């Protein structure tokens, strides 16, 4: 790039732009957004990583869909993977093996897709934590927070359905557990379960249904809501960290073009690069090692994808309370499998209102971010809640923990049961005290400077 501006050259691009403007009157609107301000802070880029992972998921997923066959009918495997040759496996599992071993570039696509799914949910989670602890969900952004929570749920759904498609031993196990939890819902559970699978487990057409959910309905929902998420963001403009320049009535940042555009493109490239490396070099979900799904076999230790870990942990830790009152049986999976996760998501989704009503008692419009210390109660609850999720997540691996330490499984489970209650409370309380201490110190320091004899021309 030279600093001297060459005289404007005509390029074909100019002609295209003119042609379009002649027909769509674009210049005015484009001008307005060309220099839109993007507050520059690294934490604002985490959401973009999620977005880019989704793009990678859509592209790799489309490729996979060309080869995948959602069919449980049995075929005889005759591909290159020797241990399974001659064995009767489902057409779905067969197509997954073909994709992995015979389609050129198939394995890398499959592995990038799986890794991208893990990164997608991880990026959403970290992005949510950022928004939570900086109070970016406050009015007027409650709506976008809710959209984000629904996006997370859809991401879970997409992950679960995708995990179940290859029809390998692990995927069947996940499906079995999901169906059983549904079955346990009072009154309607069996009906819901039967409708979901087309009959009693394993049902008649499970893969076909999961497939349509995974490649059509859930992606449509994800794309639609991501669109809404971004549209609301543009409409409301970014939040920003307060500074001398940045106030509640402006946005200080880098312009959309060229700075933000180039930064985002670079980030896009880096995201793809990392996913490609993970997908190329780090084996994930080697379904041929698990073998085809047989309802009477199981793979141990069975571990779901990471974002399901906390649900798994809840199921594992929950005591075996099962009772029958007046002929109504409440299975031991109902609370940890349905009610608690429902409650957690409800509280998370309703957080902007809970926060405004009971914690900050502040219903005003805010565009400046807070620091965790500014609202100690929120910070305490947030840290405690996060540690709780983390500890039930760890509980999801209690068998792995037990086999890697000298302690028995039951002792570990007992410790975890107490730990998942006590530790989050304790750490949440500590976080609250620290935040409160910092806030008070700051307030004291501010008071001290103000009460000093006024030397400047402030007054």
């Amino acid at each position, binding site marked *: 790039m030279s600093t001297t501006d060459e005289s404007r050259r005509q390029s074909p691009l100019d002609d295209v732009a003119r042609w379009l403007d002649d027909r769509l009157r674009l210049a005015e609107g484009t001008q307005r957004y060309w220099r839109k301000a993007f507050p520059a802070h690294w934490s604002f880029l985490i959401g973009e990583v999620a977005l880019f992972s989704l793009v990678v998921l859509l592209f790799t997923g489309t490729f996979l869909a060309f080869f995948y066959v959602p069919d449980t009918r049995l075929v005889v495997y005759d591909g290159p993977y020797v241990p399974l040759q001659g064995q009767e496996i489902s057409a779905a599992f067969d197509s997954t093996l073909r994709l992995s071993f015979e389609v050129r570039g198939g394995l890398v696509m499959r592995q990038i897709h799986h890794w991208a799914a893990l990164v997608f949910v991880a990026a959403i989670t970290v992005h949510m934590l950022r928004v939570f602890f900086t109070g970016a969900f406050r009015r007027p952004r409650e709506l976008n927070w809710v959209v984000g929570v629904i996006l997370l749920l859809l991401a879970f759904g997409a992950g679960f359905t995708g995990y179940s498609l290859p029809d390998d031993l692990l995927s069947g196990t996940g499906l079995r557990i999901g169906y059983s939890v549904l079955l346990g819902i009072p009154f309607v559970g069996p009906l819901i379960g039967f409708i979901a699978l087309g009959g009693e487990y394993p049902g008649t057409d499970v893969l076909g249904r999961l497939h349509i959910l995974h490649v059509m309905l859930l992606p449509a929902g994800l794309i639609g809501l991501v669109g809404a998420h971004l549209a609301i963001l543009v409409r409301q403009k970014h939040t920003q960290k307060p500074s001398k320049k940045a106030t509640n009535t402006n946005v*200080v940042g880098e312009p959309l073009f060229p700075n933000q555009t180039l930064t985002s493109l670079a980030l896009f490239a880096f995201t793809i690069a990392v996913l490609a490396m993970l997908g190329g070099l780090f084996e994930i979900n080697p379904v041929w090692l698990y073998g085809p799904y047989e309802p*009477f076999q199981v793979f141990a230790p069975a571990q779901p994808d990471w974002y399901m870990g906390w649900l798994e942990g809840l199921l594992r830790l929950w005591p075996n309370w099962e009772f029958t009152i007046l002929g109504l049986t409440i299975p031991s999976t109902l609370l940890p499998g349905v009610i608690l996760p429902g409650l957690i998501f409800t509280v998370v989704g309703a957080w902007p209102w809970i926060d405004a009503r009971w914690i900050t008692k502040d219903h005003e419009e805010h565009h400046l971010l807070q620091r965790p210390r500014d609202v100690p109660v929120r910070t305490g609850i947030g840290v405690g809640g996060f540690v709780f999720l983390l500890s039930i997540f760890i509980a999801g691996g209690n068998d792995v923990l037990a086999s890697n330490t000298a302690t028995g499984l039951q002792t570990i489970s007992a410790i975890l049961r107490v730990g998942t209650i006590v530790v989050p409370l304790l750490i949440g309380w500590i976080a609250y005290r620290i935040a409160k201490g910092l806030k008070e110190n700051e307030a004291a320091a501010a008071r001290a400077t103000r009460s000093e004899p006024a030397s400047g021309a402030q007054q």
Partner: protein
Amino acid sequence: MAASDRRPPRTPAGGRTKADQWREQRKREDRAARWAAVSFLVAIVASLALFVVYISGGQAQLEGLTLFIAFGAVGVGLAIWVRVIVGPEEIVEDRYPMRSEDADRDAFEELYQSTMGEVTVGGRRRFLLRLLTGAGLSLGLALLIPIRSLGPGPRNELFRTEWGEGVRVVDEEGEPLRPEDISPDQVVTVFPEGATGSADSQAVLVGLRKDVPTDLRQPTVEGIVVYSKICTHAGCPVGLYRAAVGELLCPCHQSTFGVYDGAEVLSGPAGRPLPQLPIEVDREGYLVAISDFRVPVGPSFWNLTRGDGA
């Protein structure tokens, strides 16, 4: 276009003149441009390498690696471009409260009232509007019907399996079993004859040791016990047997069931014992079921204890 044009000139420091600074800045940008160019070149080479890998048969690791280098290099090039050549720039944009101006709100409200007036004023039109709403709701309800087509309602499937009176106990290969085939501590996955591989009838047969006292709920054959293999927690196959302690272990959430105590839950989240299959020996000396399981198998559900009404 370079950032140096836009940046406010700084006061010369350390005796350097503005011209010096400008020249330094130019040099820095030239160097950055060179690095960016190198990055893009690397990306081109890596992409071509990917082509070669692909055409020569494909190899997952190399594909991943070349993709990584190609996109990574593009990213580095772009990052240099935006950080050094374009340089930081700060602009300030105004922001207005999200709420519309009062005047706009009032104007819209008036518009709404007047246009809605045309539709609803007068008893008859309001009446029509109500009926239309009713029709809309009914139609919405009617549209739920296709969902019901997705599956039959549960009848007695959850209470029944393929087991029944006189049905032979067979192994995974479909071979019927005799009591003398079973040695103590042996575990066999069994099915009702004619339904090998069945998801809801799968059961686990365990050879019992003579010296351990048993406490079983159903009639069985000396030295042998058969339980449903479906975990009563969330339906995983109870796949592991720890003979030393006589425990069946479910690998999903680690429920353990005592084989000698009627599969009572010893630990873990399962809420009830594995149902035991009542068995006997038929005239030809093979193991057969006396009846189906006496309680529903698998994960619990709300009307579990009510029976299927049959």
